[in-house]
């Protein structure tokens, strides 16, 4: 206000000047009086400003409290319903159930304690079984409040039961001319999130916190903006007669999300993973089933499951004693580890399945035609390192198809050398390694720093990369890239959601398959598909065979860091039918709990078990007559004959290792230059 005073002083000065100038002018008088009025106006302004200041100083706390308290009483939020999540067949896999909070209004009850208190409390105790003493003490303690949330999660039936009892009592009080009434109780709507299938598809669905209804991991997090709605509001306002009126603005419910997941396939996959985990077990077993022709994920399961209805339960992973020892941070870390979606967020060296990409890219570039032959002596020296093949005795002379069938490292090194690092890494990019697939799930790992580029790759890096060592991928990257190779060269963005519906069920958005780029030509696809078919029919992937089906696929056995500890990550990726795949399934077993881990058959046989159930379900028919089936395909028995199969395998192939890399080579691939010196 200091400037105001200045102005007025200034004005006075001017005024005096005017007076001195010409005293006879009647305006002088006016100016003098004007200054009086101006002075009064400024005093009024200053006084009002001071009044505001004082109001804030003395009443700020009190008024803020009042505002908050009436906020609850006069207007309240009406919760919206979080959108459901459905699987592709319309099965509800996540849904919001309406429940009620029991609200006691002690202020109303105390407004006529004699009439209301006993009647109300006795009905509450009768219907809900609350202790009468406790109710009374709550009402006495919070006698000024209008809003006491006494109980949560009351079902609709309980609410109706209470309301019926209340009517009944009030009626009988009325009839008996008693002034007692049940009064001052009401119910507030609320929603709880329920997952009818518990831990099923937990990594894909994620869960929503019941408190703030925000999604955590999975679709619940990624599609949170779609799933949430807008809270409604009931609020009081004054009408023309200055009486309080209530207006209800209805909430807008969230949209429904239809997933590409097929709950039946998901359950088949989960069943077999659980069986495997309980019989043999591993650090991590995971599988992805997807449609290679549009990128839709049909099932995604890992052995790291949790109950979506009780996501913070650590009992499956930690004993009560262990939990007691954990502090809050340790618990949070443990939980976030459990909630982590391995298939999207974790990276590893893919191993042999990447040989498919090495061959495909070389063929695409015309570096090989498919008729070349390679002589495998069991190892090859590259950049001063002696890199061994899976078969230490050497595969002998192989053509390209046989190199894939036998999973020969030496052939791959030769092919990649012929192709040159420039083109090899260009194709790694084309296949999407090093970049995110942009799958609609949160927490996808960024692998851009975990691969080599043509600029920084040495000859050794190129050689080891050609058979899937020394760079990291995620499961989803590999599955998407593999799908593009077997489907004729269309790289589709993998996705888990196909449709968004509004709360009434009308379609808002269809999520169309997104073709990201073309990877290979149809000719390459045909060659690869045939080679993969033979890999399963005659080569290293025989354990993956499914009776009556042409299965194409590639095994993988990658030794984990640190090398030399005997820890392996085995995998199998396959497509059915081999020549025109309709489904791709990728199974990965990390560190199987067995002495001799280096057998891809753990993954292949899991693939076979899953596909044996999934294929008929998907109406993919066997390509052979039932009658011929038994006699002509003894390989189908490979699943049961797995013992002999495995032994054979362990002798001949499946162990792809990089002998010299046992030092402290950091990922991805320590610069070979260093090793040379």
């Amino acid at each position, binding site marked *: 206000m200091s400037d105001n005073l200045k102005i007025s002083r200034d004005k006075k000065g001017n005024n005096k000047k005017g007076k001195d100038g010409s005293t006879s002018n009647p305006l002088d008088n006016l100016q003098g*009086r004007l200054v009086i009025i101006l002075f009064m106006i400024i005093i009024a*302004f200053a006084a009002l400003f001071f009044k505001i200041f004082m109001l804030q100083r003395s009443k700020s706390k009190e008024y803020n409290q009042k505002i908050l308290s009436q906020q609850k009483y006069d207007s309240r939020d009406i919760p919206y319903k979080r959108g459901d999540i459905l699987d592709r067949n319309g099965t509800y896999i996540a849904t919001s159930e309406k429940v009620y909070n029991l609200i006691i209004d002690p202020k109303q009850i105390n407004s006529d304690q004699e009439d209301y208190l006993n009647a109300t409390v006795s009905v509450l105790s009768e219907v809900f079984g609350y202790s009468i003493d406790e109710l009374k003490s709550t009402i006495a303690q919070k006698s000024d409040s209008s809003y006491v949330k006494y109980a949560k999660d009351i079902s609709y039936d309980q609410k109706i039961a209470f309301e019926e009892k209340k009517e009944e009592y009030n009626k009988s009080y009325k009839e008996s001319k008693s002034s007692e009434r049940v009064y001052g109780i009401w119910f507030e709507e609320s929603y709880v999130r329920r997952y009818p299938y518990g831990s099923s598809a937990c990594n894909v669905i994620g869960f929503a916190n019941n408190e703030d209804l925000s999604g955590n991991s999975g679709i619940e997090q990624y599609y949170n903006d779609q799933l949430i709605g807008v809270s409604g509001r009931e609020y009081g306002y004054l009408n023309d007669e200055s009486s309080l009126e209530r207006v209800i603005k209805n909430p807008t419910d969230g949209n429904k999300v239809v997933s590409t997941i097929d709950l039946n396939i998901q359950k088949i996959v989960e069943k077999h993973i659980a069986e495997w985990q309980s019989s043999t077990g591993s650090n991590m077993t995971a599988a992805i089933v997807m449609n290679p022709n549009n990128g839709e994920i049909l099932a995604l399961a890992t052995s790291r499951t949790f109950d979506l209805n009780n996501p913070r339960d650590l009992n499956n992973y930690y004993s009560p004693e262990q939990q007691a020892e954990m502090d809050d941070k340790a618990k949070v870390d443990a939980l976030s580890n459990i909630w982590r979606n391995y298939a999207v967020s974790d990276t590893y060296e893919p191993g042999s399945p990447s040989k498919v990409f090495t061959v495909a890219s070389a063929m695409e570039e015309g570096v090989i035609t498919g008729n070349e032959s390679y002589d495998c002596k069991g190892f090859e020296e590259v950049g001063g390192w002696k890199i061994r093949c899976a078969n230490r005795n050497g595969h002998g002379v192989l053509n390209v198809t046989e190199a894939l069938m036998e999973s020969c490292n030496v052939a791959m090194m030769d092919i990649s050398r012929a192709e040159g690092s420039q083109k090899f890494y260009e194709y790694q990019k084309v296949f999407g390694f090093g970049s995110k697939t942009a799958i609609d799930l949160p927490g996808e790992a960024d692998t851009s720093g975990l691969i080599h580029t043509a600029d920084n790759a040495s000859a050794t890096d190129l050689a080891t990369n050609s058979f899937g060592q020394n760079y990291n991928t995620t499961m989803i990257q590999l599955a998407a890239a593999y799908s593009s190779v077997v489907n004729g060269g269309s790289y589709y963005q993998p996705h888990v959601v196909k449709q968004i519906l509004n709360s009434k069920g009308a379609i808002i958005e269809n999520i169309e398959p997104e073709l990201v780029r073309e990877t290979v030509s149809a000719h390459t696809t045909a060659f690869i598909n045939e080679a993969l078919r033979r890999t399963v029919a005659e080569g290293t992937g025989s354990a993956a065979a499914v009776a009556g089906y042409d299965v194409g696929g590639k095994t993988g056995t990658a030794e984990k860091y640190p090398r030399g500890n005997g820890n392996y990550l085995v995998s199998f990726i396959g497509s059915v039918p081999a020549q025109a795949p309709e489904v791709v399934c990728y199974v990965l077993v990390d560190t199987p709990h067995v002495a001799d881990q280096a057998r891809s058959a753990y993954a292949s046989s899991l693939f076979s078990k899953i596909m044996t159930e999934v294929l008929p379900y998907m109406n993919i028919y066997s390509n052979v007559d039932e009658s011929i089936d038994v006699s002509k395909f003894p390989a189908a028995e490979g699943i049961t004959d797995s013992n002999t199969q495995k032994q054979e395998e362990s002798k001949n192939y499946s162990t792809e290792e990089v002998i010299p890399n046992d030092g402290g080579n950091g990922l991805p691939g320590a610069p070979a230059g260093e090793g040379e010196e």
Partner: protein
Amino acid sequence: MADDIKKNKAKIKNVAKKELQNQAVKRKIKVEKGGQKKIKVDTAKENKIRKVGVKKPVVNDSKKNETKKNQIKKRRFYDYSPIFIILFLLMLGLIMIYSASSYTADLKFKNSAYFVNKQLIFVGLGLILMIIVSIIPYQFWIKLSKPIYLVATGLVGAVLVIGRDANGARRWINLFGIKFQPSEFVKVAIIIFSSYYLVKYKNDLHSTDRKVAEKKLWILFGAVFVPTLLVMVENLSTSIIIFLIAFCMSFLGTSNKRLHTVGAIAMGVILFFSKPFVKFIYERGARDYHLTRLLVWAEPEKFSRDGGYQVIQGLYAIGSGSLFGKGLGQGMQKFFLPESQNDMIFAIIVEELGLFGAGLIMGAFVFLIYRMIKISFSVKDPEGVYLVVGIFIHLSLQVILNIAVVTGVLPNTGVSLPFISYGGTSILVLLGEMGIVLSVARSIKLDY
């Protein structure tokens, strides 16, 4: 919304920079041409004042603008600073109306910008009106003062008969499909009529004979009482403003002291004793609509169910906004303050923008009033002086009464905050009045 303000301010700042450069060039010209010492001194003085206190960039650049104009058109004094202040207030008003009304508007009209859009139209029309009026020489209105007075009086009489009910009071009249409040026009009519009257009878009013002067004053009061009483039937606060405008203007237009002194003392006494008096007659059992409002004012917490609700909620809003408020759009009281975009908008402003926002708005009004007084001092023609003075009295009365009501100092009477409150007629009338002020300012000849 906050972005809008920032943008606006940034824009203004840019303009200010340019003006600064312009000014430097102009100064050179000034030295060459010489003369105009008075303006130079004024500018220096204003600069000093600015350095001491005034916070708004709006103020700064508008002044430079003025200086620049002075030098280009030596003969015309065109004062831009009030225009900037008015635009600032209108803009802030639109933002605050949106903040205060969007929720209710969405509920009632399914369009959260319902009130803002309507107000925007009136602001546009009002600005056009202001420009038109500023071009018309103000003597035009003085010549028409008698018919204007008669028409306005006739309209407030007519509204009692054919008026439309809105919010429980008959204040609206429908003319050619447009709704308006004639009582707002009465305010202008009284300003114009008083200007005419005070100049016409200035000799009598300044007569040393007390009786001659007082007789002329009583005639003026009589003329003012007619529309005042007609308005009072439905709208007490407007009638009080109408009367106070005439009271203050006549105080300036006479050398008589007695009548106004007595009047002022009487008003003070009424104000001072009304609280106890109201309580007293209430205890004696008197019940009445107007009385209830006064009771609410006397003891808002006690009578919150009888309309004290609005006052109390307004006080809560003011009291809960701290130094910088809860933030634009963050206020909670708009859900409780009925029609918060109207008379109680100042409460929302204090809640959301805090003491700072209150100071900003009050500072803007003080500056506007100060500019108007400056104009009135520079005008030689007495009729122009009275017009400007009458308008500034109207403006300040309305600001003071509005804030006084919102802060609970005066009873809740329904006075809108100029340029900021929602209301078409009020905006049109006020901007029309500003047009008159600009028209008067234009008449100032500088080459003397």
